């Protein structure tokens, strides 16, 4: 308590500081008077008495200051003095202050902008109750595999989830939700057309565990998640607003979701985008119990060996997470042994990690980690360049104010005080600059997010500055302030008063410009590194987009569709597909049309084990696709051997044929002609199912970065009657995409395609029409973003170092004005003067380039995994960066040089 009272007293003293000072003064005066009176009574003259009293008392001013320091506020006082003084000085030189703030705003803004993004993507909590108490079972980023062999175990089957939920009392609640989910056709009862919206299956207690309350109506409860319970759904606030205009009658209304009738019972809270962070968050949440009814025989829920759910939970207070984790893993091992067949060592590898789950599950986090780190490195470099730049500016200014600081030193200011003064000034500057940078970042983050979330319907990210962003900016600002203030501060404190005062009134010539030059060289070097990185990213993006994809990207359009054709007879499907094909070809501008299970670049893929007729023991596998006969023509792939599919020959019921890609042929028939060979999906009994009739070139199918892999194509609907009975196999005949080859860019293509597809069958919903170049761009969204940002930062670095070079050259010209005047007077031509000035700039630029090239080579290794089709130490990129930098910096130096050549010798000589 003592210290508390003491602090209270101190604060009281601070608040009534004037009173205390007056009292102290009065007290001391009183002391002196008493002493003087006593002296006088001893027979001194009044004057003598006063003097004697003062002698005895000591230095009153010093003692008063000493007393004040007893209150402990001196440092505080001095600080405010420094701040006031700094503000005065800064407002006195407006152009310097403005330049500095702009430079800082750019440097700090780049960092803040990127941090906002990183924070939003990687660190931010979900808008749920107490996100910090939510844990996730499993830390894998696997979204869509269905097997149990996961290693970092994070996907659960419904039955295993229920087993854990009911047998782990350490959890207050445990909820499960579908990991890989997507668009399905949704139609409100009474409406003609259905739309493609995102649906996710969640456990009945999902919203309870998250602690969410309905915006309208109610959210689902465990009772909804029972076999036989009435089918209900919760709609997201966003979908409610965007699709149905916030119509209150949506609550309680009947909908058909993927052909399945449900009643919407409520609207989720506005900020809630689900627990999986992605660009197309769920529009509807359905209880897991409804899944079998929706998917029929291909249900995920019913099969205890299909792992498709993420699980999160809330631990009871006071429970040790490590104990719970150990318990969960024991349960996992038991469960796997009882329910799965597999090698014991594979089983033993499975492990559940208990990790914080409050920020949701994000593949983005994993995907972007490396790239964001790279960008963070780049923005840090930009900030460093900005700091070096400002340090230079300050040094130049320090030279101007050198006389002033020598006067201060001469008057007894301590070195420490001088350094502090400069630092306070630079920190104030950088905080103002940081505030401006914050504004820049806030305004530009919309742009940034557009880049990152290209082609997505919604951005689950809020860019309003959060406290974390504010703190980050403040921290960066202060750090930057110290960084760029330190060199000038030390330089100032070294000023020797005597030499400065002697030359008072004249310019401070002869001061070494070495620190400035070093800083400039550093700036240029860092810029080279940044520009090289930017060049590399641009080149790798170009490589990715312009590489051979095995098909003609331009002019191809894919319409993703949701077809609920489960249970349709093959004949009905054939008629439907023929109808679609005809309707598509009727649209003006459409040259060719094809139907496919998967479209290229849609990211989807179906891999299966196959058995070759001639090598039945070979453990073979391949990716496959079902397509309509015109598929290869439509996407522009080339048949290398044999033939493609033929509408008239390859019909349901005729010989089952297949076209394999080059990679397939090379992998499974390395030294023979594959035409005529047979293989089948599955085991030995299927070995003769399909006959190879053609080889098509390898198409990059799933991802731009992924080279061709074995793939085979089957004609749609060509299937044995036995296979039609297998619901999973039958589903492969249900198309997922309609592909078009169009001429030019037909107007109204979207609406025409949507209209024609929408009117074919009530169960067919057109989801999204995207051109393949756009699909590709979306697939490469990350690369686009990184490349664009890298270029922005590179240009920023270029601008900053040019400004720096300009400033320094300009400054050195102003310092050498008299020298230049003298030279001109002695007959130097303008050309010679320009060369003289440029010489310095060229030397520094060359030194910077040399250091920068070395730096680029060193950092190149960090980029190895990020670039595509280009060496990180690509000489072309480095040379390009050097050339660009050299050109720009020479231009920047030329301006002051030209100005120098116009120096009038008469004027300079007169002032000398």
């Amino acid at each position: 308590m003592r210290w508390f009272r003491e602090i209270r007293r101190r604060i009281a003293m601070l608040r009534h500081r004037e009173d205390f000072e007056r009292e102290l003064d009065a007290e001391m005066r009183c002391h002196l008077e008493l002493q003087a009176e006593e002296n006088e009574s001893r027979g001194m003259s009044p004057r003598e008495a006063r003097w004697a009293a003062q002698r005895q008392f000591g230095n009153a001013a010093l003692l008063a200051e000493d007393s004040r320091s007893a209150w402990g506020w001196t440092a505080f006082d001095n600080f405010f003095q420094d701040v006031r003084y700094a503000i005065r000085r800064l407002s006195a030189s407006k152009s310097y202050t403005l330049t500095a703030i702009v430079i800082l705003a750019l440097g700090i803004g780049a960092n803040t902008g990127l941090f906002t993004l990183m924070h939003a993507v990687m660190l931010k909590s979900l808008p749920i109750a107490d996100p910090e108490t939510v844990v996730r079972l499993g830390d894998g980023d696997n979204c869509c595999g269905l097997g149990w062999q996961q290693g970092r175990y994070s996907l659960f089957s419904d039955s295993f989830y229920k087993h854990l939920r009911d047998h782990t009392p350490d959890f207050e609640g445990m909820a499960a939700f579908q990991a890989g989910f997507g668009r399905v056709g949704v139609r409100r009862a009474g409406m003609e057309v259905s739309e493609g919206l995102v649906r996710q299956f969640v456990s009945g207690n999902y919203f309870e565990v998250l602690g969410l309350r309905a915006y309208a109506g109610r959210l689902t409860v465990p009772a909804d998640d029972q076999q036989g319970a009435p089918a209900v759904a919760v709609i997201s606030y966003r979908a409610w607003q965007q699709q149905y205009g916030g119509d209150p009658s949506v609550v309680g209304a009947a909908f058909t979701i993927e052909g399945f009738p449900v009643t919407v019972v409520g609207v989720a809270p506005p900020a809630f985008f689900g627990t999986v962070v992605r660009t197309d968050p769920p529009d509807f949440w359905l209880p897991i119990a409804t899944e079998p009814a929706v998917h029929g025989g291909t249900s995920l829920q019913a099969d205890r060996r299909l792992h498709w759910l993420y699980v999160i939970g809330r631990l009871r207070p006071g429970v040790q997470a490590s104990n719970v984790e150990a318990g969960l893993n024991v349960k996992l091992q038991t469960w796997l042994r009882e329910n799965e067949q597999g090698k014991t060592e594979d089983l033993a590898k499975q492990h559940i990690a208990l990790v914080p789950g409050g920020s949701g599950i994000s593949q983005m986090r994993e995907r972007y980690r490396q790239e964001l780190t790279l960008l963070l490195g780049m923005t840090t470099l930009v900030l460093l360049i900005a700091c070096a730049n400002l340090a230079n500016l300050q040094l130049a200014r320090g030279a101007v104010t050198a006389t002033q600081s020598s006067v201060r030193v001469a008057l007894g200011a301590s070195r420490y005080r001088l350094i502090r003064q400069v630092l306070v000034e630079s920190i104030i500057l950088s905080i103002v600059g940081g505030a401006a940078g914050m504004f820049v970042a806030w305004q530009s983050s919309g742009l940034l997010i557009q880049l990152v979330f290209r082609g997505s319907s919604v951005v689950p990210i809020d860019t309003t500055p959060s406290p974390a962003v504010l703190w980050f900016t403040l921290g960066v600002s202060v750090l930057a302030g110290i960084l760029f203030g330190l060199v000038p501060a030390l330089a100032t404190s070294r000023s020797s008063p005597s030499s400065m005062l002697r030359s008072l009134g004249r310019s401070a010539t002869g001061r070494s410009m070495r620190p400035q030059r070093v800083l400039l060289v550093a700036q240029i070097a860092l810029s080279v590194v940044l520009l090289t990185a930017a060049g590399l990213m641009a080149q790798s993006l170009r490589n990715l987009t312009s590489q051979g994809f095995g098909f003609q990207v331009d002019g191809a359009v894919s319409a993703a569709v949701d077809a609920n054709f489960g249970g349709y007879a093959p004949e009905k499907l054939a008629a439907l597909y023929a109808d679609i094909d005809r309707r598509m070809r009727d649209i003006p501008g459409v040259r060719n049309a094809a139907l496919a299970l998967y479209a290229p670049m849609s990211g989807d893929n179906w891999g299966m084990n196959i058995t070759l007729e001639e090598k039945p023991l070979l453990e073979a596998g391949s990716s496959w696709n079902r397509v309509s006969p015109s598929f290869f023509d439509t996407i522009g792939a080339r048949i290398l051997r044999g033939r493609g599919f033929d509408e008239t020959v390859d019909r349901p019921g005729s010989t089952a044929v297949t076209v394999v890609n080059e990679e397939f042929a090379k992998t499974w028939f390395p030294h023979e002609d594959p035409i005529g060979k047979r293989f089948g999906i599955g085991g030995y009994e299927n070995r003769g199912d399909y006959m190879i009739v053609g080889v098509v070139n390898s198409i990059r199918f799933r991802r731009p970065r992924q080279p061709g892999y074995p793939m085979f194509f089957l004609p749609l609907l060509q299937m044995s009657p036995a296979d039609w009975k297998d619901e999973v196999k039958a589903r492969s005949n249900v198309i997922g995409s309609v592909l078009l080859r169009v001429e030019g860019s037909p107007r109204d293509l979207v609406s025409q395609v949507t209209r024609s597809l929408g009117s074919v069958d009530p169960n067919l919903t057109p989801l999204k029409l995207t051109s393949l170049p756009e699909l590709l761009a979306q697939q490469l969204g990350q690369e686009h973003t990184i490349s664009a940002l890298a270029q922005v930062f590179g240009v920023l670095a270029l601008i900053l170092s040019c400004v720096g070079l300009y400033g320094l050259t300009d400054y050195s010209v102003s310092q050498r004005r008299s020298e230049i005047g003298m030279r001109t007077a002695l007959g130097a031509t303008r050309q010679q003067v320009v060369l003289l000035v440029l010489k310095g700039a060229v030397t520094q630029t060359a030194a910077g380039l040399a250091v920068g090239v070395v730096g680029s080579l060193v950092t190149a290794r960090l980029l190895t995994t990020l670039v595509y089709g280009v060496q990180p130490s690509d000489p072309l990129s480095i040379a390009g960066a050097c050339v660009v930098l050299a050109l720009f910096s020479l231009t920047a130096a030329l301006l002051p040089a030209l100005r120098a050549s116009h120096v009038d010798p008469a004027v300079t000589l007169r002032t000398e």
Partner: protein
Amino acid sequence: MLVLKTIRRFGPSHGYSIAKAIQQASDEVLQVEEGSLYPALQRMLVKGWVTAEWVQAGPKRQTRVYHLTTLGMEQLDAEISAYRRIAQAIERVIEPA
């Protein structure tokens, strides 16, 4: 310590009288700058060992009078005993000579 002791001995007193009292008590051995008393007093105010109040002293003059607080008493006792210990120790060291 001396300041505290003086206040304890003579009761509430003002700066001048404390200075004089210390000088007299020490037979003018301790001749310090009288002014240095004031920083010391300020420190004690902050620590809460003494409190101060203004009193009328004579027709035209106000002086600040310092009182010892309980906290100040404790502090003084502690310092005196600490001083005694050291003094005794020194005494014992130089005794045999």
